[in-house]
């Protein structure tokens, strides 16, 4: 086996304080195999007793080269890579990708497909926030939260399985619409969820929101000011908890979000507790959107009729020569996109999920860049943990809600 390299202080000299060099403060590795780092994140901590003097995140353990892989695939095939990006928000990543492709090639999407996209994306947002709520409860030793949250998440994953056959990596959205129409059981399953979920949110709140132990651990911990948040490109609930009213669903509506009535919860404190409250409120708002979208869901086609980009339905292939040709061309060659670049962004549960997509005139993208929210949200961590205890670091890390698949790509 290969030798283990000895790490010398020389490499980190410019990142730690002078006191670490004399041995006055201690350097401690937290992770990459640490349950509260929510994945494979290594934090190099410089500690004075139990107080954090410096924190140096080390990322890249989960780097899988998703951007490079997407550049080697046609536009349709590259979509499956986006599922693997932020594995708590698979449907939201699909949405970001299909919207970017549709913008690049200028493709229309039928109203029913847009409605379905909104319903599923908001359900995914709820599922993602539930995982956050469960695991951050777990980090603060509130074990039962995890069990309750996963019970409801299971119900959402069942809905995904119903519509796409997959629980997590659905790839249900396609450029120009969705894969196929939802089955008849879909409406009942979603209505069931809408009926029970408000009571469940109250249940979660009764366990945490006014719990004195929880408040002690969360209030005035990891304060993030508005100015620092913007400097570090923090977006999503973490930015809204610092008093910036910025939600892409509201300010730059996509996929028909302008039709729905919902609020953007904001707080001004900027601490871990404010981030918790913002996400809890977002659960309720997302549920409102799901209900409205389901009530308004129009009938009609779920895929664009533009055969240059969207494959024809199976039934047409047997009777129409032209359909057969389209089908063959689309699945062997793919469709060409113009030699131009676009940037489009959607609001993922963690913040602004942007895609810079550059075509070269052929069927494969020249460059795909994924602007993932967790990457920038983690970059601010060293600034907000200084002066806190190691135990508070765990609370702060869970309150900014990172997903390592989203960071390392």
């Amino acid at each position, binding site marked *: *086996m*290969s*030798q283990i*390299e000895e790490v010398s202080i020389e*490499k980190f000299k*410019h*990142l730690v304080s002078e006191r670490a060099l004399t041995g006055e403060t201690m350097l401690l590795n937290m992770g990459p195999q640490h349950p509260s780092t929510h994945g494979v994140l290594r934090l190099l901590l410089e500690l004075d007793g139990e107080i954090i003097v410096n924190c140096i995140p080390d*990322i*890249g353990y989960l*780097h899988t*080269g998703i*951007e*490079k*892989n997407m550049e*080697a695939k046609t536009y349709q095939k590259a979509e499956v890579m986006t599922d693997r990006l932020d594995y708590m928000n698979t449907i939201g990543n699909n949405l970001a990708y299909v919207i970017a492709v549709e*913008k*690049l090639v*200028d493709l229309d999407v039928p109203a029913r497909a847009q409605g379905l996209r909104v319903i599923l994306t908001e359900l995914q947002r709820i599922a993602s926030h539930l995982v956050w709520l469960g695991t951050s409860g777990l980090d603060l030793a509130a074990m039962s939260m995890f069990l309750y949250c996963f019970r409801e998440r299971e119900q959402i994953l069942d809905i995904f399985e119903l519509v796409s056959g997959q629980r997590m990596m659905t790839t249900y959205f396609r450029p120009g619409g969705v894969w196929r129409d939802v089955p008849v059981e879909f409406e009942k399953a979603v209505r069931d969820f809408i009926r029970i979920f408000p009571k469940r949110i109250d249940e979660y709140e009764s366990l945490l929101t006014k719990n004195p132990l929880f408040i002690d651990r969360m209030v005035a911990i990891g304060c993030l000011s508005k100015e*620092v948040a*913007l*400097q*570090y*490109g923090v*977006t999503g609930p973490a930015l809204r908890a610092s008093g*910036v009213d*910025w939600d892409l669903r509201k*300010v*730059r509506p996509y996929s028909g979000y302008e039709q729905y009535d919902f609020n953007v919860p904001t707080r001004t404190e900027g601490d871990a507790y404010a981030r918790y409250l913002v996400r809890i409120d977002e659960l309720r708002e997302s549920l409102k959107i799901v209900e409205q979208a389901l009530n308004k869901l129009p009938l009609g086609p779920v895929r664009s009729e533009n055969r240059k980009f969207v494959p024809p339905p199976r039934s047409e292939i047997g009777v129409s020569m032209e359909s057969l040709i389209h089908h063959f061309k689309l699945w062997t060659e793919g469709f060409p996109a113009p030699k*131009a*670049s*676009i*940037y489009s*962004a959607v609001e993922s549960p963690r913040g*602004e999920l*942007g895609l*810079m997509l*550059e075509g070269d005139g052929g069927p494969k993208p*020249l*460059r795909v*860049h994924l*602007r993932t929210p967790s*990457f*920038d949200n983690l*970059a601010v961590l060293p600034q907000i943990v200084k002066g806190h205890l190691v135990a508070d670091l765990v609370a702060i890390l869970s309150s900014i809600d990172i997903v390592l698949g989203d960071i*390392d*790509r």
Partner: protein
Amino acid sequence: MDKKLEPIVKAVQDKFGATYEEFRDEVHFFVKPDQIVEALTILRDEFHFELLSALTATDYWPQTAPRFHVIYQLTSLVNNLSVQIRVPLNGSSSSIPTATRVYAVANWRERELLDMFGIEFDGHPDPRRILSPEDMEGHPLRKDFPLGYEEPQFTFNFDEIDLRKPYAKE
């Protein structure tokens, strides 16, 4: 183009002699590498582009002049606007001043570009690789870097692969 963008486009054109392109209502400026810090500062302070949404690059290999575009995507929360600045870089001298002093978010994003494209940022406070291991050779997102099919090492085949790969030994 959005009406609100017109004065900004005009100001940047006058100040830097920048050209711009428009596609699907997005405006892309082209500025020279030595102007980028000033351009970002002006856009942040005078036109309220508080957020550097994305900082990335594109490799146009085998074209060498310019080989890269470094891309800055800026967002204004106050006016709800976006602009993109592109800085063409030649393959032989791919270095550009760092934007860390204008936007702190550029720190990690520039480390990512150093890692993935080998673009040097002059004056960067912490120029280390961010995602790949320190001892890695090459820059994966460059177009001349092959999309690898490397055989994974397990305990049962480690020695066999180890013989073929000199760099895996230490």
